[in-house]
């Protein structure tokens, strides 16, 4: 029981990170109907920006951890959002009215471009950081196994919850959210009502990238390392999460993220660590066979 509780905590934390990345996939799919394969690498860039900002702040002598975390978060979000915006502007917008596969191929190219850029600019080796947030609580102890909840785990989950609340508010209550949903349903009509569709799409990429940056920073804090290749696997997992939850659905992305995180953690804990990815993807296949639109996806409605 104690062991299970511990794995539950670990799974939820990992799932939160996947969920934050998955939202970016699902939002972009909702509004432009393409899979942004470069999104995983945007997450990786977010991790690197967080690392660099952290090192700069420490080297100028800042030691108060909450301030460091807040500054790192803001800088990472801003810089990564800029990357997200540029990727859309350079690689996707010119292909908007091209054939369906063109932006997807462009996205795969962008993914390689970003990871190679990080490899060349930052080196290919894994970059570790010393633990920034330490300490934690022992929740309970049973038959010699102590269930730990570390401070960093609390930070990850709380940050995710706060961002989700903000983001849900943004989409459901604000002008931008309304415009985004309108563009999602009928871009031509939205343009005829005076909505600048290109700008709305840009904002979608910016928001998705900012959320991925938060995930990147959380990853850095949680695992204490970044490398140029981490965007690939995390990106594929998050994409799986988005599909599992029902692509295009925002609560679905979060639910999918949590599911993938839990499956992976539980499988590693009870069966074998080597096969954890096999487990995650097998479950995806099974779910898609029985629920082709994912857990919370709506069936595709034919447009007239």
């Amino acid at each position, binding site marked *: 029981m104690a062991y299970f509780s511990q794995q539950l905590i670990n799974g939820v934390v990992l799932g939160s990170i996947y969920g934050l990345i998955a939202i970016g996939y699902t939002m972009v799919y909702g509004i432009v109907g393409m899979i942004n394969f470069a999104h995983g690498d945007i997450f990786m860039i977010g991790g690197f920006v967080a690392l660099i900002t952290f090192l700069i702040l420490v080297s100028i002598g800042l030691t108060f951890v909450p301030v460091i975390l807040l500054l790192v978060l803001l800088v990472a979000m801003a810089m990564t959002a800029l990357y997200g915006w540029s990727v859309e502007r350079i690689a996707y917008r010119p292909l908007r009215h091209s054939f369906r596969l063109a932006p997807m191929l462009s996205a795969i190219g962008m993914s390689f471009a970003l990871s190679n850029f990080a490899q060349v600019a930052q080196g290919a080796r894994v970059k570790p950081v010393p633990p920034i947030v330490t300490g934690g609580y022992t929740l309970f102890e049973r038959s010699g196994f102590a269930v730990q909840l570390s401070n960093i785990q609390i930070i990850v989950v709380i940050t995710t919850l706060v961002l989700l609340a903000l983001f849900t508010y943004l989409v459901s209550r*604000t002008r931008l959210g309304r415009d985004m949903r309108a563009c999602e349903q009928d871009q031509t009509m939205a343009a005829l*009502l*005076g909505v600048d569709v290109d700008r709305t799409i840009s904002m979608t990429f910016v928001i998705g990238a900012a959320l991925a940056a938060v995930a990147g920073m959380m990853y850095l804090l949680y695992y204490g390392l970044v490398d140029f290749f981490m965007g690939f696997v995390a990106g594929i997992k998050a994409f799986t999460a988005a599909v599992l939850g029902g692509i295009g659905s925002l609560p679905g992305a979060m639910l999918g993220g949590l599911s993938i995180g839990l499956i992976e953690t539980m499988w590693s804990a009870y069966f074998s660590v080597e096969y954890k990815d096999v487990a995650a993807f097998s479950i995806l296949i099974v779910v898609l066979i029985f629920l082709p639109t994912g857990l919370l996806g709506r069936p595709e409605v034919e447009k007239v």
Partner: protein
Amino acid sequence: MSAVPASSAAHDDILAVSGLTMRFGGIVAINDLSFTARRGEISALIGPNGAGKTTVFNCITGFYKPTSGDIRLTHSDGKSYVLQSLNDFRICKVAKVARTFQNIRLFPGLTALENLMVAQHNALMRASGFTLMGLLGMPGWRTAEKAAIDLSSYWLERIGLFDRADEAAGNLPYGDQRRLEIARAMCTEPALLCLDEPAAGLNARESGELNELLLSIRDDRGASILLIEHDMSVVMEISDHVTVLDYGVKIAGGTPQQVRDDPKVIAAYLGTDEETALAVMEGDA
């Protein structure tokens, strides 16, 4: 912007289409069409199926770039815009032209209220200081948001949907969706409202309500309306001016009465020549 001083002669015309030609490959959909729509009036564009009416609308609202010709819109302050050189959202934002479609194009997943709010994008955009201030909840934005809700409520009440404001637009009955679409177009505060077959699929009672709505839009809001319609009870009852198209060419224009008595128009609708049409008309009398 493409604002140029308007010529004084055309001051009464809100829309002046001159020499409009639209070719799709070898097919000439519209051939050298010229007509005007007057400010504060309801102008109708009629013609048999395939006459090119919707193509004209698509040229006016920027869907098609005309092969040649000129579409000029003049605001009441004298500023005029060349519509074929503006693209997508600027047609609405700058030139203030709104349109509806033959088949309803509401945002089905948004509520009735949200549909009307999206249409007020530009007013809210200015007030929200391009998103940033809106996110911070600045007071200016709150006032603007409230004004937008007030305008939406006004229109919802006007079309009798106030009680269903929070229902998804796609779940409303067909007739309500039609009126909601017109209300949404009006929420953009257009100078010219283009309606593509607003009465299509409506029953007699509903199209009577539509007539009242359109007349009140003209009289109370001072909007100019350009209308494509097959339902003659709508066209004849509410239009101030009718232009008749056939095979992409204007064959008649005038008041509803003049057009109704024009043998060329009858001939086009019956698909015969003028003599047969005259014979039919005499037989009628």
